[in-house]
């Protein structure tokens, strides 16, 4: 057993999970986009909200791109299997993100062909489907998908040469038939809206928008808690997908619950995360004085919660991408789907730059967000979305 290699696989699963967790946090941009008409009643208010969110859209987008790249580099067989198989899910996600990228820049420009309203609706569609679909896709990490993997096929000249292929006609869209996946999708959607309101409360100085945000915060917290609890209870109670030392994948009762019990540190991160999210929401809703910094508790809580859930899916001898087609042995684990030891080592050296990257992002973020935005800003700023 090559312990260095195993360590590297665990380390890269941690990094990919961390990127996934940061992505869900940064989806406050998407969540906020679905609320532009609810929180902004006048044209100027909407412009203010869109500009406030727009200062951050590129971070979410870049994190998505980097998440894809890092997954490709560290677990290329997932890239090949999931993207090449669950074709329609990923294509739908991509389409809804393309809509976002242009909408900010084009929205308020003269001669923009489709008109302001269309670009605003693009932002809403991105916020709705982007979050729901990403959440639903991640749900399959716990519930499994219909695919098969056979390396020998690449030598099948003149026949079917594709190593990993989807075994259902819907190319991944069948994931929406599983209530657990959908529950996670909706949980991500409502969480993104919660984070969106919290971010707007923290970044915009406007009483009307603040009051509406508070109301929306409450309205979205309730369905979020229902969906999230449903998802967590379901995965704790269901059979999970385990892998033994010989690499054989098998079903194990209460696997995901046991994973938390067997990895108390990860469980602690999970609990800390959930408490952080609730604390952030609670302070913002019930504080006697006006409290607008809830995003930081809820944001950090989101990162912790998602990180712990993804670690739960991949660590502790768990198959993170289970195959439900035929036998379980096509399932992907962090051991059978990772890059070679050499590549993981090289990439690990590159990963030493990550703290430096995070540092300049945080520094620049603070510089830009030093002062809350006010309605007047949209008149004085030189670059307006």
């Amino acid at each position, binding site marked *: 057993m090559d312990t260095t290699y195993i360590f590297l696989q665990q380390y890269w699963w941690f990094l990919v999970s961390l990127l996934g967790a940061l992505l869900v946090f940064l989806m406050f941009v998407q969540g906020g986009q679905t609320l532009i008409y609810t929180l902004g009643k006048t044209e100027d208010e909407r412009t203010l909200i869109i500009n406030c969110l727009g*200062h951050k859209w*590129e*971070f979410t*987008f*870049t994190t998505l*791109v*980097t998440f*894809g*790249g890092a997954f*490709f*580099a*560290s677990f*290329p*067989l997932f890239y*090949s*299997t999931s*993207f*090449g*198989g669950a*074709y329609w899910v*990923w294509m739908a996600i*991509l389409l809804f*993100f393309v809509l*976002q*990228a*242009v909408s900010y*820049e*084009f929205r308020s*420009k*003269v*001669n*923009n*062909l489709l008109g302001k309203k269309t670009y605003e609706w693009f932002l809403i569609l991105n916020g709705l489907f982007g979050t729901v679909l990403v959440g639903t896709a991640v749900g399959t990490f716990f519930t499994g998908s219909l695919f098969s993997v056979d*390396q020998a096929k*690449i*030598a099948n*000249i*003149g*026949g*079917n*040469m*594709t190593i*990993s*292929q*989807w075994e259902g006609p819907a*190319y991944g869209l069948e994931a929406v038939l599983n209530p657990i996946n959908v529950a996670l999708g909706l949980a991500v959607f409502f969480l993104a809206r919660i984070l969106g309101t919290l971010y707007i409360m923290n970044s915009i100085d406007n009483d009307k928008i603040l009051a509406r945000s508070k109301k929306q915060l409450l309205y979205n917290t309730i369905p979020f808690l229902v969906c999230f609890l449903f998802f967590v209870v379901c995965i704790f109670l269901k059979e999970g997908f385990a892998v033994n030392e010989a690499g054989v994948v098998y079903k194990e009762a209460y696997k995901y619950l046991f994973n938390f019990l067997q990895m108390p540190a990860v469980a602690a991160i999970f609990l800390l995360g959930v408490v952080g999210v609730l604390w952030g929401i609670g302070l913002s809703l019930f504080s006697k004085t006006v409290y607008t910094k809830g995003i930081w508790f809820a944001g950090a809580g989101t990162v912790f919660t998602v990180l712990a859930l993804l670690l739960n899916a991949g660590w502790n001898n768990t198959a993170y991408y289970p195959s439900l087609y035929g036998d379980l042995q096509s399932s992907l684990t962090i051991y059978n789907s990772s*890059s070679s030891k*050499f*590549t993981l080592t090289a990439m690990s050296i*590159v990963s030493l*730059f*990550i703290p430096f*990257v995070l540092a*300049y*992002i945080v520094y*620049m973020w603070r*510089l*830009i967000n*030093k002062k809350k935005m006010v309605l007047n800003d949209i008149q004085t700023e030189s*670059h307006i979305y």
Partner: protein
Amino acid sequence: MHDNLFLSSVVEWSRLQFALTAIFHWLFVPLTLGLSFMIAIMETIYVKTGNEFWKKTVKFWMTVFGINFAVGVATGLILEFEFGTNWSNYSWFVGDIFGAPLAIEGILAFFMESTFIAVMFFGWNKVGRKTHLTASWLTAFGANLSALWILVANGWMQNPVGMEFNPDTARNEMNSFWEVLFNPTAINKFFHTITSGYVLAAIVVIGISAWFILKGREKLFANKSILVASVFGLLSSAVLIFTGDSSAHNVAHTQPMKLAAMEGLYKGSEGAGFSMFGIPTPGKKYGDGKDEYVFNLEFPKLLSFLGYRNFNAFVPGIDDLIKGGFKKEDGSTAISAEEKIRRGRAAIEAYQEYNKAKKEGNDVVAADAKARLEKNFKYYGYGYFNDPSSIIPNVPLCYYSFRIMVWLGFLFVFIFVISLWVVLKRDGNFGKWILYLSIWSVPLVYIASQAGWIVAEMGRQPWTIQDLLPTVAAVSRIDASSVMITFFLFFILFTILLVAELRILFAQIRKGPKISNESV
């Protein structure tokens, strides 16, 4: 489903979809590569002189930059994921090497770009002048750094190095990061591509400025912009031409079939001439005995020199590469395509035997099969073909694209020289014909830039990874109809976005930087 029929249509649609995304991506990216640097240069002048004129100039070009940037980012996301969605076997076969540059691109370059672009656009009133200037430079470096990593990945597809095939995992695994990074193909490609972006951006700046002069508006702004752009473009052109030359040299050694297709050369010869202008015979096929060209004006011996640094070197044509038998530069005799197919087939069969023996636990047979696989692996991809002529790319497309790129390239050098001369020596009094030529060069520079990629990527066909994995063995197992639908969805969406972006851009240009000439 009949496999051959399935493959031909899904491969074609997948290629078409990838080409569509790449072409659209490349309509937006090259401008941002070069314009970001020109903006940083202009802002440096602003910070040094404190002259508000330069700040307004910077802001105008930043608007142009911002409009382009968004669509470049959007199409880039799709490109990245399409390696997985449409080329599943490819991602499996080379993911161990190919994924790394994409990840590094994200971690090191994209975050730099997206963090500092936010400061660049929204930081004018929030950060100090010097911090803002640093952000502008870092945005430019970030954009170009991302180009480095994706071009390292692309260079590796043209000339795979630094790896070894592992039959246990059915994939190529990296064994030298530095070989992948410093792959001569990648390095040439990087410098050639970014400087092509700089030239494109310089032509766009000159073209737009020329329009202002023609309209009698913003003369000072236009002249100063032309000054920066023509110097920047001229310096970039020098590197562009130099790396173009070394690319030809490189292609001659790593992808001789691409070189032959670029030249429309079927019958090779010693002291081969370079076709300056010509018409390759339409519909010519391998072995049909027709002449290569309907008309051809060639520069004697130049092709031999470009490819091999020797005016009398033998340059193999398409016929020679298929039939083999010619003496190569290192003195060995080239083998035929048929022999390559035979060896490729031997490699694939050895891989099958290895798998079988491993399953049965027969280590002796497995070791023997592995040895045969390694011996023939160089030709692995050829094993997927039956017909030797399958390895010929689309000759007329490569031939014409190459010439369009090169000749337009020289036109742009001419524009830089004459613009610089007029600004410096004739006080910016441009003749009308120069202004019109500059404006018309804007669409031409995009055509030249796309043509370059057509040579690079169509010339590599039928391979995704040169000699190792043809497109037919790289594709995902999905319905051709699914790919067809996404193709049209993307086509419609991208077209709408392009039209919207052009309308916005033209409106912004018409608005102009609004600098009164007296303010300086």
